[in-house]
């Protein structure tokens, strides 16, 4: 079953002067773990953004879980219930505790607090941040923050996880740990993941490696 379908997508910025995606097409099946590789500026992050609906496309079609990502209501619904997003920087709110940060998707989805807390503790246990839940983000280490961001992205049990250089800001040891955790959480739950990365070693551990260049899909790497 196809989880993500991108057909001939074009995206430009600055009134069309900067073309970032030039006719990109990509299909990702349910349960696949796909690495988007390529140099900086080749369009990896923009492709993730159009898949999540954070950026509107100029032309082409984006479909996630069989739904066209066009209407605002569809985008919001997908982000609430179907898509999780992890960034290179954790983007947690510094004045909230880690637990409060992780509960933001539950607030957005209008979920029940107790169910949210149960899910939070399950994920915190799996990622090893249970003892840090009550602390403010500014008191956490870089690795803990990124784990926290990972927990937040999985709070609504998304079918599709989009990761934009999720380990890019971590040291080598944390990079391995966080990525191992990410793969384990995704694979054990049969979820789909698309990850933009520069890191060929991490990309090599994914099911597919898609190479992007200058706004196009250049091909798949073995």
């Amino acid at each position, binding site marked *: 079953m196809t989880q993500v379908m991108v057909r001939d997508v074009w995206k430009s910025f600055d009134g069309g002067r900067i073309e970032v995606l030039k006719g990109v097409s990509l299909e990702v099946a349910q349960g696949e773990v796909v690495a988007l590789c390529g140099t900086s500026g080749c369009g990896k992050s923009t492709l993730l953004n159009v898949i999540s609906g954070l950026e509107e496309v100029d032309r082409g079609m984006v479909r996630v879980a069989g739904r066209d990502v066009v209407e605002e209501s569809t985008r919001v619904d997908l982000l609430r*219930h179907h898509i999780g997003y992890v960034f290179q920087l954790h983007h947690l709110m510094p004045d909230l505790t880690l637990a409060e940060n992780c509960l933001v998707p539950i*607030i957005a989805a209008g979920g029940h607090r107790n169910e949210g807390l149960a899910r939070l503790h399950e994920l915190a246990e799996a990622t090893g941040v249970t003892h840090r839940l009550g602390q403010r983000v500014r008191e956490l280490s870089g690795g803990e923050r990124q784990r926290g961001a990972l927990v937040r992205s999985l709070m609504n049990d998304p079918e599709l996880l989009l990761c934009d250089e999720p380990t890019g800001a971590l040291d080598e040891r944390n990079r391995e740990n966080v990525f191992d955790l990410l793969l384990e959480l995704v694979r054990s739950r049969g979820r789909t993941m698309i990850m933009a990365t520069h890191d060929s070693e991490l990309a090599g551990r994914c099911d597919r490696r898609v190479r992007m260049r200058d706004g196009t899909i250049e091909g798949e790497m073995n």
Partner: protein
Amino acid sequence: MTLWRMILTNLRRHRVRTAIGATGIALGVATMLSVVGLLGGAVKMFEQILRNDSQMVVFEKNVSDLFFSNVPVGLAAELEAQPCVKAAQPVLFAVIASPGRSIITCFGIQASDGRLRRGKWLQGSVAEFKGDAVVLGERAAGFLNAKAGGTIALGQGTYGVAGVVRMENGFENGGVFMPLPACQKAFHKEGLCSVITVAIADGHRLAEVRDWIGTNREHFSAMDNDEFSRSYAQFQIIKVTAWVVGGCAFLLGGLSVTNTMILSVFGRIKELAIARVCGFSRGQVARMIFGESLLICAIGTLSGWALSWAVLYGLRAIPQFQGYIEPSLGWAEVASATGLSALTALLGAMYPAWYAARLNPAQALRFE
């Protein structure tokens, strides 16, 4: 964790900014309630002066101020001859000066006027209130340095002091009661008064007096006291002025809230973007901003209530103002100020909420 918890956290982390926004609203609420309370109180005191144990007031039609109303004193006797009238008292309002005091309210009245009965006589007696002998309010006696049995200079003449009375109403307590003929003479209004206050006989209706005046005296109006208060231009001007001044104060408070909310939104563009990535709709983002603004206004409103209470209570406690400051604040005024505060919160947050809701999350995350 709820949306309100996020709202509280957002306000708490920028306490000074929140406090400035709330202070703007507090000053708006306090100014409005204080001005409305003080001027409303002043209007009420004027109303008390006019009521004087009566239910109606008769005055000259189409005059902008009762000081310019000329009613023949003889009309009082005609009214008293009607079965529907229990008593009719002519009153001449005037302002007079004395050495060292440029404005003193002067009431030309008859000895039978209820005012002299109601006041507490500190010196002299009502029996002396005749000819050129005046009665002074306690405060007027103080600043004129006068005693019963003495004389005082008022306007162009010299008058004997028949007595000193303590009146509850500040204008009366600081005023001079002059026998009506002496007052008419002093102000060249022989045979005239400003108004006639009318007490209705038991079992009769106010409309009977109104009809009689309408039929027999077309140049005069008879209104019941409440109707008069509602329609008298001077009272309306005072009330409108109070609300306009208060409204301007609110406008400034609203700008303060807008400024606070704009700073709040611009200071956390990435956070708002992350909230969108986590599934917040544009509506939820807008509600969060409106919620913050409403909370700031709620804090400001409560502070404004307390501040206005302190101002009014403080002014009333100052001896010089006693009797003059009788703030009149009802639930209607408090509810109106609170409603305006909520409206200010919503209007003040409109642009920031619109800006926050239409943020492009992807662009916002790239924002430095």
